[in-house]
């Protein structure tokens, strides 16, 4: 179901103009309603290829819903979403995975009874060729060769995320933090061009957040994946993201460079809850994460 390619100058509503060349994903006037609940109202934005794009906003603002619209879990009530210039509004999640969108989940969604290894191998699904006919004839059809080849790549991902020690463990029995890491590994295994991370650092202590941040940065810089990240830890968001979009009550209230966005009083009020400017106002550059101390 291929749609018309993106018009040269999409979303004139957009502040930061994007040319199709560099826009990998674009949402145009996305609305999402659940009965009375307006999860998203007329949200438009574009994500440039190779950028690290963060979505922040108060709880229930519609961040996850937005990501769901990108990955195809939800279909916008109206509005369109474009991926690599194609209108993918109507396509199913599994189709989008094949197109190159991978993601992790806010509430863990691992395959609890599978080993970590298999969990990640599932990520290779759309890259593997063998099927229910060739698979069973393991040795005769080259399924074995293929499986092993992919296994090798998976092992690289495992090394990259430093989860060798739980390779064989049953995913369901891992601790929260480890599970989040395995989820990331599984998403990476898809070899996506666009990877969506829903609160990848929730439930991690500083040390682990640092690791996670490092992985994400590497994903973005080394592996050249475009990353969309939802995160509540402003420290991380400010430090590593190129651009930030802020949602509130399903509406986009700001978008732009981290420090710009942070400067926006609405954001500070709605999100950080720093209603009135205190005596030690942080310069936009210094991360407010530390301000929570105050």
């Amino acid at each position, binding site marked *: 179901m291929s749609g018309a390619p993106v018009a040269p100058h999409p979303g004139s509503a957009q502040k930061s103009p994007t040319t199709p060349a560099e826009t990998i994903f674009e949402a145009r006037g996305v609305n999402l309603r659940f009965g009375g609940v307006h999860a998203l109202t007329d949200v438009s934005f574009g994500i440039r290829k190779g950028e690290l794009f963060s979505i922040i906003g108060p709880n229930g603002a519609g961040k*996850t819903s937005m990501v769901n619209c990108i990955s195809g*879990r939800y279909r916008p009530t109206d509005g369109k979403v474009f991926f690599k210039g194609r209108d993918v509004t109507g396509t199913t999640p599994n189709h989008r995975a094949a197109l190159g969108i991978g993601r992790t989940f806010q509430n863990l969604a691992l395959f609890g009874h599978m080993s970590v290894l298999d969990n990640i191998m599932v990520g290779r699904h759309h890259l593997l060729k063998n099927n229910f006919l060739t698979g069973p004839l393991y040795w005769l059809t080259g399924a074995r060769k293929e499986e092993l080849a992919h296994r090798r790549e998976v092992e690289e991902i495992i090394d990259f995320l430093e989860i060798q020690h739980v390779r064989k463990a049953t995913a369901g029995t891992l601790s929260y933090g480890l599970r989040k890491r395995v989820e990331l590994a599984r998403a990476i295994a898809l070899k996506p061009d666009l990877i969506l991370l829903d609160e990848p650092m929730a439930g991690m202590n500083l040390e682990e957040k640092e690791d996670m941040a490092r992985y994400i940065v590497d994903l973005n810089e080394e592996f050249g994946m475009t990353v969309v990240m939802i995160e509540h830890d402003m420290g991380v968001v400010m430090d590593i993201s190129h651009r930030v979009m802020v949602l509130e009550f399903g509406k986009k209230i700001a978008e732009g460079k981290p420090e710009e966005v942070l400067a926006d009083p609405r954001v500070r009020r709605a999100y950080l809850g720093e209603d009135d400017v205190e005596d030690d106002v942080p310069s936009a550059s210094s991360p407010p994460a530390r301000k929570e101390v105050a």
Partner: protein
Amino acid sequence: MTLLFQLLVNGLIVGALYGVVAMSFVLIYKASRIVNFAQGEFLLIGAWTCWWLLTSWQLPFWIGFPITLVFMLAFGVILQVVVLRPMIGEPIISVIMVTIGLSIVFQAAMKWMFGVFAKPFPQIFAHATMNVFGLQVQTVYVVSLAISLLIMAGFGWFFKYSRLGLAMRATAFDQQVAQSLGISVRQMFAMSWAISAMVSAVAGVTVGVVNGVSSALSFFGIKVFPAVILGGLDSVIGAVVGGLIVGVLENVAHYLDSQWLNWGNMYEIAPFYVLIAILMIKPYGLFGTKDIERV
């Protein structure tokens, strides 16, 4: 007054009976997500107990029947304590398998205790049959219809509003969470099994009165599956509605079959075709709550 109309009436009346049995399924399911394959045997046990009280002890029905209900309550609790308690927290399907084991045990035990021959129920109503819209039907059917509506109303309220009702639903949703809230999973299970056993006794006695008591009655257990599903596994009202629908379906199917098609056996099979058709449109039955798809 036409044959079709008579069949419709009959369908409704018998459907109500299916409704009762269906409810006894729902009760257990709502508290534990377990489908009880021994339900048919529960029904049988209820029937035999009442029969025994009425024949061996010559008790009048209005005494014997309440005693039966009390006995079934106790039976439900004991069963839960002895057999099902150890299974708490185990995979649902294993528990379902246990209920299958139970049905084997009870089936044999009943035959052992009461023999393999069908036994007639003593006359309990002054008039064994009565006239409904010009159709002669067994009085006991009509009575059970009334009872079933009562039970339905009762449980409808119970699960929506009462504290225990909520607790049962919580237990069904996630035993660990339920316990973390201070809900005694054991209590909930014991309760639901007891009530369910009692309800199935009502049905057991009814079918017993009509067909005579024999171990074959336990077949009603499986027979009502379509009704349960049609209404929605976890809906008390659905159970009764499902029962009525299946009852009517059977009769209408039989009507078409006997009048025109002459394929034979539509009576038994048609409900299943309709069942699938309805499920394809409403995957959770008519009143079942759909589970949450949220990531």
